[in-house]
Structures are given as C-alpha cells and as structure tokens.
C-alpha cells in the first residue's frame, strides 16, 4: 500500500527541526530510520500531514565515551552499534542487542533514537537500555531558544508506544554510564524466527567489586508488559551478594514476578513468564563469564 499524501521537509539543523515540529504540532511527525514509521504509514496506521526527516542533520550519529558516559546519538543506526569496536569490546550487552534486532538490512536504517521514541514494549533497545541504566537527552523549544533536558529512560516510557516527550521535543541522545573494569552484560532473546520481534527477551548488566561481590545490577525485560520493564526487585536482590547459582536462581524468580506478560500469537502468558526466569539466569551467567577474573 501507499502512504497517504503528506508534505516532507528535511531540515539541516536541529533548531530547524524543533521549530518545524513546534510549528506543525500534532500534524507533524519525525522521520528517523523509517523502519517502524514507514510500514505504519503504508498501512495508514499513521497519517502525518508533515514529515520532518532527521537524516540530513549532521552530528546526530556520534558514538563515543566521554567523561564516564557512553554517548549514543539518536541517529546512530543499529548496524553501527553492532559493528563498532568500542561496543564490541566494552558493551557486550549492547552488541548482543543490536545483533538480534530485525534483520541486517533493517539494521542499516533503523536508529537507536527512533526505537526509543517509538516505545514499542517489544522493542529490544528499551529493555537493553533499561538494564544499562540509560538516560534520554531530549531537545525542545523553550521560548525562542532550544533547550535540553535529561531524564532516566525508566521515566521516559509512559505506556505502550507512549513517552514523556512533550510537543516539539526530539530525542537527541542516549547516555549510558561507562562500563567499569569488572563489569559486563548480556542480552538474550527468544524469537519465533530470525528477524522477528521477541517472544521474550532479557538484558542484564552487572558489576563486581574486587572481592567478587555484586555492586551494580541492571535487568530489563522485553515484550512482557505495557512498556519495557525494569526488574527492580531482582536487581536489588543481587546487590551485595556473591553471584552463585542459587543467587541467580532467586533473581530469575524475582524477574519473572516483575513480568506482566499477556497471551498472544507468540505464546501463552505462563510460558513467557517462565522464559523471563530462564533468560534472566542465563543472561546473568553469560555476563559473569564475560567479566575478567580479578
């Protein structure tokens, strides 16, 4: 099918993009990688009157560590995360995630910022970045100027496909605390076939102190709730403990308890809940294996 007619504009600065978004209000929509929006437009599930394309704005695709933070520009494509040596070496949670999103061709276009803004509860970045304790940088109009605000990702997701974005606001950056020396993560996903959205997926990020005691834990759940979820009780359970098998098993149970799965074509709720338990344990094991021995 063809999208309904619309007007297209490709600003070359962020300022222009924010102004345009402000000017056209709810009739306008941001276009990033287009890998969710264009299919929706083809089905006429989305019928924006004006499309504001971010692809001609230079400088929104940075990927760098800077003073204790991994900075991911909103227009960074999934593919860049998958390939970047920095990510492969220091952020296995993110490298794992990029590799299982859609298929390689979709990953060439789809962006991290677009995924986060889309706020699909079955989106993989939501769960992975919750585990990584990410923050979202939002640029928007303030009077005649453009200003930025930064909020935790957990506060950004407000419901299925709903976010804390206000009119005129654009996601410009995702910030992840830089990985420490004895820190690692993993992302595991059950999918019906390659390239499909998750039946269930779980991301974890953990850090140990010199004695092997857990000092930091993040657990994000994908496709088992109205938004991507953080398994907070499971995270708190891990802190201050040595991560032996029985500790991991309990974390799996707590994560499963935090899930709010529903039955659908991808599986019954009970199955999904149990898979949250299993994937949490496996992802924690994998992350532990990846932490260099002291």
């Amino acid at each position, binding site marked *: 099918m063809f999208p309904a007619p619309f007007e297209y*504009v490709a600003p070359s600065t962020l300022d222009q993009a924010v102004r345009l978004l402000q000017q056209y209000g709810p009739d306008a929509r941001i276009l990033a990688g287009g890998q969710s929006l264009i299919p929706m437009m083809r089905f006429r599930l989305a019928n924006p009157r004006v499309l504001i394309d971010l692809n*001609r704005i230079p400088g929104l695709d940075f990927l760098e560590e800077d003073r204790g933070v991994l900075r991911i520009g909103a227009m960074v494509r999934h*593919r860049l995360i998958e390939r970047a040596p920095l990510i492969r070496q220091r952020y296995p949670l993110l490298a794992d995630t990029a590799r299982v999103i859609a298929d390689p061709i979709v990953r060439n*276009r789809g962006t991290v910022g677009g995924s986060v803004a889309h706020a699909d509860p079955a989106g993989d970045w939501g769960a992975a970045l919750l585990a990584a304790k990410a923050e979202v940088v939002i640029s928007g109009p303030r009077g005649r100027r453009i200003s930025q605000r930064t909020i935790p990702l957990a506060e950004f997701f407000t419901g299925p496909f709903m976010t804390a974005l206000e009119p005129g606001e654009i996601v410009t950056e995702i910030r992840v605390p830089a990985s420490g020396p004895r820190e690692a993560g993993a992302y595991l996903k059950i999918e019906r076939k390659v390239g499909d959205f998750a039946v269930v997926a779980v991301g974890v990020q953990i850090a140990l102190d010199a004695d092997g005691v857990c000092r930091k834990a993040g657990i994000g759940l994908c496709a088992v709730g109205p938004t991507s979820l953080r398994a907070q009780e499971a995270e708190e359970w891990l802190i201050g403990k040595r991560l032996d098998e029985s500790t991991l098993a309990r974390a799996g149970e707590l994560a499963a308890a935090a899930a709010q799965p529903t039955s659908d074509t991808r599986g019954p709720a009970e199955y999904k809940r149990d898979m949250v338990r299993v994937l949490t344990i496996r992802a924690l094991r994998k992350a532990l294996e990846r932490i260099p021995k002291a």
Partner: protein
Amino acid sequence: MPARKGKRTAGAPRRAAPRKAAVAVQPAARHRIQVTVNGRPYEAEVEARTLLVYFLRDMLGLTGTHVGCDTTSCGACTILLNGEPVKSCTMFAVQADGAEILTVEGLARDGELHPLQKAFWEEHGLQCGFCTPGMLMTAYAFLNENPRPSEEEIRVALSGNLCRCTGYMNIVKAVQRAAQEMAAR
C-alpha cells in the same frame, strides 16, 4: 525519466559526493531530486510519498528490483544506497536525493554477468527468481565487506532476504562459489 545520459560505470559503489544544495526547509508535497543509479545520473520530480522502489520501477523503468511484501520483511526490494543494502520499499524517493544507488541492473558489466550472478546460475541458486535481485544485492555488499565468509556468516548476512522456493542451500553455495571466484581474480 532519464534527464541526462551519463557514462555507465557500474561496479563498486562509491560514497556520493557531498552536495551543496540542501533540501528546502519548507514542507512540500512534491520534490525535485537527483540520484545516480547504476552510474547514470537522473533528475525527476517525485511526490513526497513515493517509495524509492516505485521510483526505480515505475519512473525509471528499472523493474529488476521487486516488491514482495507490505511489511518490510522480504528483502526482494533490496538495493544499495551509497554502498549499504537498504529495503527500497521502506524509504521515500525524496530521501535518496543526492545518493548513489546500485540495483541489480547495475551488476553485469559490458554484457558479462557479475561473478555472483554466474554463481547463482551455476549453483542453481534460484527457482522462480523473485527473491534473486534482493539476494544478489545483499550478497554483493556483504562480499565487499567480508570476502572470505564462513557459511554461518553468509546465512546471517542473508537473513533479511526471504526465499520461498530454494530452501536457501543453493543460495548459500552460490555465494560461497562467488567468493572463491572473486578471490581468485
């Protein structure tokens, strides 16, 4: 419609030179675009909602690029945009303004099939052929990047291209054969 005739220089795609003319900052329903397709420059006016694949097929008459789905799932429409495989059904033609595009029509040179095309022929890498243009374009970009792939790597690289006929075995063999042929050159 082809506005100017250029020299055909099909082959390894290059990054398009940065263009000075930025797209207007006023929203519009129609846009004038310039693209280079298979080494040949084109200029055309397109509706904003024209998907790149229909621009290639209906306006330029390059019907080698196929449309197999409505959901960005099948990869039959895969082309190279500045050297990277993209699904041309999930991009607007206006977004390709200034870009260099390679389609399946640009693979053969001087009437001689590209080694990948030959390998698909020899290994029986197709039956109905509907998926083949997309397979070829994805495999072409992949072999540029990874000239000595493992079977596993080939399967991952092609995982966004669906084939309803072959069961993939011969497609993988064809890519392996092409890799060997190209390495031997």
